[in-house]
């Protein structure tokens, strides 16, 4: 609504700021909200053909409107974008990578759901390590339950580095750990603020620099949303969906992958179902369900929802100590 108001205001300013008699014409010809901006503006209505200055005003207006809306892409351009810009980031857990056909895809929001202590945080730490290791870029870890453990990541790095000769263990550890940024937040408003700051920063960043953010992890998003969801007003659901849409927008425009974790609540008959309800179900592109038997290291992962792969496929992976 605000956007439309702003555009309408700028339209008025441009139309009024031109020749004085233009405002009379503009009020007689109400412009419909353009569905396809280029075609609506460039289609000349019979009245505007007669006035020469109107074309100049229309060009300025079309520039303003095009700046507000993203440009339209056809299928070929989308395929090119998917091939060249949206790469696949390996998580480092072999079972998950095989199940997902490579790993986490850039431009997509992946959600991991599971009961307590099923390995969700371990998968997040593994993914952060995997992306930081192969010089892919920077990982941003937004932590809401104080579960980011640098000690655990260091342990994982040291247990993996057996074949490297060039870089010393210390150097590799420092390089990997310096590419992982961690920020603690305890409030949905802080999360939205951080995401807006991130958007600003990404807009002004050089595209091909090595410090590009590749993976954004929010662990866990459900602990931020549960305190506001439900109750008499639907403000909580509004914030949840706003956050989801913002995460997907950042993922798509700046070619990074977003990984969030969710917990489970009791459903009918004692079975567990993912938290956050029906409205959240449609927001992530990919949903994975994790479970772990008491006392074992082996986790089962199954696909609840995916854009390409059939749901219901399962795999196992091991959390090594």
């Amino acid at each position, binding site marked *: 609504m605000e956007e439309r108001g702003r555009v309408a205001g700028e339209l008025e300013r441009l139309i009024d700021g031109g020749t004085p008699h233009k405002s009379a014409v503009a009020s007689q010809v109400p412009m419909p909200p353009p569905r396809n901006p280029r075609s609506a503006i460039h289609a000349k209505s019979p009245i505007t053909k007669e006035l020469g200055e109107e074309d100049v005003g229309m060009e300025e207006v079309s520039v303003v409107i095009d700046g507000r809306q993203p440009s339209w892409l056809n299928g070929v351009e989308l395929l090119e974008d998917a091939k060249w810009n949206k790469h696949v980031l390996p998580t480092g857990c072999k079972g998950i990578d095989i199940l997902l056909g490579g790993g986490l895809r850039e431009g997509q929001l992946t959600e991991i759901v599971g*009961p*307590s*202590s099923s390995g969700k*945080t*371990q998968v997040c*730490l593994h993914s952060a390590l995997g992306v930081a290791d192969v010089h892919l870029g*920077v990982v*941003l*870890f937004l932590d*809401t*339950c*104080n*579960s*980011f*453990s*640098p*000690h*655990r*990541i260091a*342990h994982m790095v040291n247990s993996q580095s057996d074949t490297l000769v060039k870089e010393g263990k210390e150097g590799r*550890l*420092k390089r*990997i*750990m*310096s*590419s*992982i*940024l*961690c*920020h*603690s937040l*305890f*409030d949905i408003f802080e999360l939205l*603020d*951080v995401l*807006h*700051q*991130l958007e*600003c*920063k990404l807009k*002004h960043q050089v595209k091909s620099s090595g*410090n590009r*953010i590749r993976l954004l992890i929010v662990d*866990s998003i*459900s*602990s931020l949303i*549960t*305190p*506001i969801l*439900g*109750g008499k007003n639907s403000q909580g659901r509004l914030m949840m969906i706003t956050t989801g849409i913002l995460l997907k927008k950042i993922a798509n425009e700046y070619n990074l992958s977003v990984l969030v974790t969710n*917990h*489970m*609540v*009791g459903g009918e008959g*004692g079975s*567990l179902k993912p*938290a956050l309800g029906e409205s959240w179900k449609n927001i992530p592109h990919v949903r994975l369900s994790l479970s772990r038997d008491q*006392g074992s290291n082996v986790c089962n992962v199954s696909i609840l929802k995916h854009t390409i792969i059939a749901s219901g496929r399962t795999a196992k992976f091991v959390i090594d*100590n």
Partner: protein
Amino acid sequence: MSETSRFRSLEGGHGALKGAQTAWDMLSEEQMQKHITTGCEELDAILGGGIHCKEVTEVGGVPGIGKTQLGIQLAVNVQIPVECGGLGGKAIYIDTEGSFMVERAHQIAEGCISDLLDNTAHRLKDFPACPEILQPNSFLANIFYFRICSYTEQIATINYLEKFLEEQKDVKIIVVDSITFHFRQDFDDLALRTRVLGGMSLKLMRFAKKYSLAVVLLNQVTTKFVEGSFHLTLALGDTWSHACTNRIILYWNGNDRHAYIDKSPSLRSATAPFLITGKGIRNATSHCKRVRMM
């Protein structure tokens, strides 16, 4: 917030994001961080040195297993002076059930001090101020005690803690005994309960991170009917089980008390036996019979 002002706020901090830290810096900080010892060496070993600061640890178990004893022991052990390897901090004890016994706390403080004087006598010779600090009464004076009688008081106290922690900078542990008591009865609206508990756990997480202290929450058990059989699980449901960073379950194994790490991002699952003696929580030695407390 306009775009220009948002961009200006990015100048500080790491440059990527205001307030973010790299994992490398956090690792160096973590390695210098001291842990709060529980008094039992095996339990400390499976905990990676003791209870971690900046984390919320939940301790659950059947009644009579020793949760309150562990809470009191931690409130005493956090005050071990820095010269003897402890944190030298103060404790906040939030009591919802009325199970805190001052005489027992005095006994545990005496036990802790006598063990300190025995074990670290050589270090204490260099610090003449220590004998004055190492008195049971001064240990008791450093435990701030709040008695809660209803869930509204509990919520209010946790909201007020922020101001309290700003004034008292030395607090290094908050023990809540028990977090579940007032939320189990008289709560008709379960959805409201989930929201309130979720908000409370976020606040406690924030305190742990911001003031670098440990938060220990003691929880009760309840039975749950799953797939035709009854299980013992921690109270307050599935949502609450995600509200802590670490979880420790205390249970009986025959006649011995054991502790089991149920959830942790950095520790592997392990069990350790422990003993509750007149002096507090101590190592379990295999040839000792079970010693009942008091």
